[in-house]
């Protein structure tokens, strides 16, 4: 498959601070790619590097196979949706959306048609004459999206696009973005610190930590086979098992992960029990209970469906799981 964006040994420093350190990865054409990580992990810098707002200290960036080192932001075939939308406050919605076309010299009738189409696509027809400050957060978000998409970019960059929206709107917009991606078939690159957002929307996720990619893979891959305790704790709700505990279970001193829902509770003396532990708490989550167990000094979270027989606090139980769910990690990272 062709590559949309490629990073080759890319580093970016701000004075003494290293924002991105020797990162290499490739985003495939048409892919929904997410860069996930806590704040300050370098993911936003990577996006700004693609857009051209930041210059790399060393290494190369290729967009659609072309080295973009000398190409200024206004000549790159990418468009970005900013975190706080960055709409032009002195222009109305139509003028905002038409801006890119106006700059390109598209004729007025064509501009009007394209703007109407774009506003239609984000379900904001009829809002053309409003000013950005007369719109809600979700509407501004859509205008920013239309303003980028009207230029028919090959690559759309999204910088925490849903960060400022409330939970309900965020979930709705996630689905809309996903639909848009399917509809348009162009490359989406999303930056987010919300693992749920990255995992639910992206085809592949790069998890950033301290300016490097800690792991890159499909959401399922990251979830099931985290390569480090950091990934395991950052992505999803896996239990990170300490080397001491793993040593006790398997005789090998390595980090391991075990998903909460892969563990089942059995009687303390049951044959299938790999280990016994004491119930510390149980919390009702609606469709399930989250139970915290202390086994040999290791805290384990266990998810059991509501309606099962609940153990009480202080009770000793046996814990059981299938060997394939027990995932030994590569060398420890943190």
């Amino acid at each position, binding site marked *: 498959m062709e590559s949309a964006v490629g990073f080759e040994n890319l580093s970016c420093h701000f004075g003494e601070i290293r924002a991105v350190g020797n990162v290499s990865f490739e985003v495939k054409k048409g892919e929904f790619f997410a860069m996930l990580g806590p704040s300050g992990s370098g993911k936003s810098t990577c996006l700004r590097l693609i857009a051209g707002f930041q210059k790399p200290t060393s290494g190369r960036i290729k967009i659609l196979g072309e080295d973009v080192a000398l190409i200024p932001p*206004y000549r790159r075939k990418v468009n970005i949706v900013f975190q706080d939308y960055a709409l032009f406050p*002195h222009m109305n919605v139509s003028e905002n959306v038409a801006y890119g076309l106006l*700059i390109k010299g598209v004729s007025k009738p064509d501009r009007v048609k394209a703007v109407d189409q774009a506003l239609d696509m984000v379900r904001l027809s009829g809002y053309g004459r409003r000013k950005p400050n007369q719109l809600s957060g979700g509407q501004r978000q859509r205008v920013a999206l239309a303003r980028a998409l009207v230029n028919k970019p090959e690559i759309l960059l999204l910088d925490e696009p849903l960060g400022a929206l409330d939970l309900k709107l965020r979930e709705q917009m996630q689905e809309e973005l996903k639909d848009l991606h399917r509809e348009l078939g162009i490359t989406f690159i999303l930056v987010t610190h919300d693992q749920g957002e990255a995992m639910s929307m992206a085809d592949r996720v790069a998890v950033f930590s301290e300016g490097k990619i800690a792991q890159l893979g499909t959401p399922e891959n990251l979830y099931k086979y985290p390569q480090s305790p950091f990934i395991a704790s950052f992505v999803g709700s896996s239990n990170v098992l300490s080397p001491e505990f793993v040593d006790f279970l398997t005789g090998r001193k390595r980090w391991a992960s075990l998903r909460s829902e892969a563990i089942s509770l059995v009687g303390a003396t049951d044959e299938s029990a790999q280990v016994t532990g004491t119930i510390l708490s149980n919390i009702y989550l609606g469709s399930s209970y989250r139970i915290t167990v202390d086994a040999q000094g290791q805290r384990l979270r266990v998810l059991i469906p509501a309606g099962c027989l609940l153990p009480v606090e202080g009770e000793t139980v046996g814990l059981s799981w299938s060997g394939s769910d027990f995932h030994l990690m590569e060398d420890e990272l943190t």
Partner: protein
Amino acid sequence: MLALPVLWLGVVYVGSLLALLVQSFFSIDEFTGVIQYEFTLKTYLELLRPSNLDIIIRTVTMATVVTVAAVVIAFPIAYYATRYARGKWKAFFYIAVMMPLWSSYLVKVYAWKLILAKEGIINWIFIKMHLTSVLEFLLAVPVIGGNSLSVSYIGTCLVFLYVWLPFMILPIQAALERVPSNVIEASYDLGATPRQTFFRVIFPLAMPGVIAGSIFTFSLTLGDYIIPQIVGSSRLFLGQAVYLHQGTAGNIPLAAAFSVVPIFIMGCYLWLAKRAGAFDAI
């Protein structure tokens, strides 16, 4: 707590202004020089006499030229300070802009009179650079020229420009500071070159600052009566007319009518600016 400052604004500021406005509707008895406290538009008619109209046109033209020149000079300075100056340089910029305001205005104007005089440094520089003919050509231009820079409208304009420049730089700089950097990046991202970005995004967003600055330079020029008296030809400006009518001549109604002129002009100016969309970004 707030009542006192608001009262100050209401009574001392607006109240005195209204008192002034009322005065302009009285008239003066031309024989006795006594003010007649009867409502009349006679004083305003007097304002439209050719000699008085001349003063108004002269002052408004000067204020317009000074304001436009101030925008042209102040914008790049403010732009530089906002976009490029950091830390110590920014502090230096503020001090450099404000410092002329800390010294006496009279001293500066007299200093300028010397600088612009025939024996002054500007003339000397032109001689040393063998450009005397350029200066002579400038001074030979009718109306704005004169015997030397210090008695020409060019000189008056230069001094106004010097004295009011900080009042233009600071509001523009404040407006530019408020332009979010991601809006500029968004413009680049949408394909606009730095030049297009400047004219389509940065300048329109800085417009409220330009308007605020121009209100200062425009109204300060309209009202000033010292600079045209020290530097320039002896022809009157609005401020001087007000000064003369209420001082020596004792014609308070005409002085009041004269001082209503800048208020009226500024009102029209703001109305036009609003209609042109200068405040849309606020």
